[in-house]
């Protein structure tokens, strides 16, 4: 195997970065209708830069990847996956708070 060492510039994506919906479709393995429906459901925002050229914020990518996996693996529809991902995020947030409180209680 050939080994090549290169150094690349990386860029952190922020709220200000937008990704083409077509690229999101490929990364998250969702079709365009599903991406647009997810935006309509409020899972993430979207904008139409030119007629038919939809974009979504880059920061929504991790969330949309989970949506794609849940839809494929569990056989749930778009609105079900949207609800599931929001509940999973709420659950994780509560778990973080619970761990913090448990630590406080244990220290007392």
């Amino acid at each position: 195997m050939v080994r090549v060492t290169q150094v690349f510039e990386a860029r952190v994506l922020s709220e200000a970065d937008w990704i083409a919906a077509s690229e999101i479709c490929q990364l998250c393995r969702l079709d365009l209708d599903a991406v647009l429906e997810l935006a309509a459901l409020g899972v993430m925002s979207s904008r139409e830069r030119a007629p038919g050229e939809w974009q979504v914020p880059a920061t929504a990518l991790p969330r949309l990847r989970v949506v794609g996996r849940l839809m494929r693996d569990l056989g749930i529809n778009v609105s079900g996956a949207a609800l599931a991902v929001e509940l999973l995020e709420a659950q994780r947030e509560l778990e973080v708070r619970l761990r913090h409180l448990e630590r406080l209680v244990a220290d007392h």
Partner: protein
Amino acid sequence: MEFRDYYKILGVERSASADQIKIAYRRLARKYHPDVSKEPDAEARFKEMQEAYEVLRDPEKRAAYDQLGSEWKSGQSFHPPPDWGSGFEFSGRPAGGRAGRRQAGATAGAGTHPEEDFSDFFSSLFGGGSPFAGATGRGGGRDHHARIDITLEEAYRGTSRTLELRRPEVKPDGSVELRSHTVRVTVPAGVTEGQLIRLAGQGESATGGGSAGDLYLEVHIHPHRSFTLENRDVTLTFPVAPWEAALGASVTVPTLGGPVEMRIPAGAQSGQKLRLRGRGLPGQAPGDQYVQLKVVLPPADSPEAKGIYEQMRAKLNFDPRASEAR
């Protein structure tokens, strides 16, 4: 190579109907899906289940698998029989490993995800698993996605990681060679949990003159032993003596950027939060550090200490449960 009993993995009889297999898979998938499950071996179990379902949901693959006979047990040493596959027409492993199992809206897509790495057993029977599988044919290379794990201190200071990426590349003579690229990625200070880093052109190589895909790295920050992270804010539980809380005190508090002096106001209570503005993760709008006070009582383990507590009992008109009694 070890034999895999796909029926056992899905917990169904060999005579199970397609519907029974689908229901068994869905039931197990709900339990072991890595995005949902808390089971420690969820990811490995889920991969096994996906592989088993990939075979048993497909009549051709299932019939071929059944031809191996029912005498095999999981874990037994296995080699495909010499006439393996004759009479069957496999479409090979689908790009993405999941074709035909799609929910409306979800597509099979690219096989670039670690969860799709089926076993050698599967590959020996049904092919696939090739790093060259799943070419798009549209010229441009696909984007890839990976996870990068860092500590909270690294998120604060910034860090660098060396990643080894392997990808097939077409040589001028048309042959394909697997090349290993070592990529050093600089993670800037102030990245937060779940944030994405893009390395332009480091995804899949292009075919037919298109541009290479990008590599997206999703940042995961390990839980810290002292600090709790929420967005850019960090919280630290900080022990104080009763007299420090009651009378006020200047104390040295650890922060991600190093120790700082902080004033505890007189009359502070256990659980009270004090804010150190801008001492959380850096960024355009830097996060804050919250210092949550925890009053620690000195032990009454000497006559002198006991005497002080007795004096407090006698001289202080204090009932910690007074508000509860109302």
